[in-house]
């Protein structure tokens, strides 16, 4: 192997040598990482590998082109339909209504007023279509959970415990029994302890014990709650 390190000064070489050894992660970090990885495995089969960059770009461009074409086509159809019907409506109006007399006719309502629907308009307003949230594949779901919990963990690491609670709540709302629920609840206990909300922290720790009696995070959660209490 070519190891041409002679271009490095002795100081830098010494620094690099000091960095060469890989520090061992604490047991809690290790346990958390493995628990998460296991959760991902239990969530289901892995998504197929991402295609190579070039084909991915090509695929994206094809999709973009298809969407653009679709939009153009529907816009053209809409414009034509609207244009034709408006044209016929104008024609009908000129055919059926006599020309307005020059004097003594009550003023027609202003177009703006005519455009607004009256309260007794018989046509009910069309209800907005409720689009259900897209169903995530297990792999995507765990990824979404990870992304959602990331700011909570970062906030706890920065000891900005108040900032950790909203993402925790959001995760609980979206992924109540999610794969990372265990980690979320552990973070909740830590955040509550950090905020000095000892009673809530104890309650959260008790709930954690009840829900995850075999959790690898249980000792850490118990210790956090007792320290905060």
């Amino acid at each position, binding site marked *: 192997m070519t190891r041409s390190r002679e271009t*490095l000064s002795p100081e830098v070489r010494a620094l690099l040598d000091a960095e060469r050894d890989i520090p061992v992660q604490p047991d809690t970090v290790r346990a958390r990482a493995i628990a998460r990885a296991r959760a991902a495995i239990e969530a289901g089969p892995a998504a197929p590998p991402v295609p190579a960059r070039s084909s991915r770009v090509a695929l994206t461009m094809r999709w973009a082109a298809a969407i653009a074409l679709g939009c153009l086509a529907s816009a053209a159809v809409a414009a034509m339909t609207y244009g034709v019907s408006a044209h016929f409506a104008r024609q009908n109006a000129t055919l059926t209504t006599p020309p307005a007399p020059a004097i003594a006719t009550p003023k027609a309502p202003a177009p703006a007023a005519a455009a607004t629907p009256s309260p007794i308009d018989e046509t009910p307003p069309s209800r907005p279509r409720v689009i259900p949230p897209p169903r995530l594949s297990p792999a995507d779901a765990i990824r979404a959970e990870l992304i959602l919990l990331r700011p909570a963990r970062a906030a706890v690491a920065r000891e900005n415990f108040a900032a950790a609670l909203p993402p925790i709540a959001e995760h609980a709302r979206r992924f109540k029994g999610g794969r990372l629920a265990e980690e979320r609840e552990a973070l909740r206990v830590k955040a509550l302890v950090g905020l000095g909300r000892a009673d809530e922290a104890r309650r959260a720790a008790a709930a954690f014990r009840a829900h995850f009696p075999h959790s690898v995070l249980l000792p850490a959660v118990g210790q956090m709650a007792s320290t905060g209490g």
Partner: protein
Amino acid sequence: MVGVSHLQILPSPARRVTSDEACLETFQKELDYVYRTLRRLGTSSSEVEDLAQEVFLALRRSWGEYDPDRPIRPYLFGIAFRIAAAHQRKRNREVAFGNVEPGDSGPWPDEALQSKQTRAMVLAALERIPLPRRAVLVMHDLDDVSVAEVASVLAIPLFTAYSRLRKARRELEAAVRRMLRERETDVR
């Protein structure tokens, strides 16, 4: 004649579980390496757990493509590099906020403290090298991977790998010299 059902061609759930277990076992064994590599590639300590998890997900997705006869670390490095680079691009797009590292708690023995400071200095110096060049330097000068293998893992021509390595070393030298000067000024 022995009839072969088409179902026999499909991987059985047991096989999948086995491959998942093998992947998990590898990840568990190389966890420290993954964490350190991500740190060397500029991931903050508060984000390293999440990105390590993404490395696992990517490793699991591509597990079928991995050749077990080859060393795992360069392969893992390739995954970690892509994930770190994607994360860096995303972070650059977002509104930047202070990257506050949690402080160390508890007393440290002198030796450990010194080693920790040295490591912190290396990470800080590496941080000043653009990621594509830093990846080459970390792989070659810290992980002892040959330049040819580096080029292959990072999907770059060999010549590019050499030129990135040369430049990265110059940048590292300059960064360390600057940091030492700054430290001396602080001491005075």
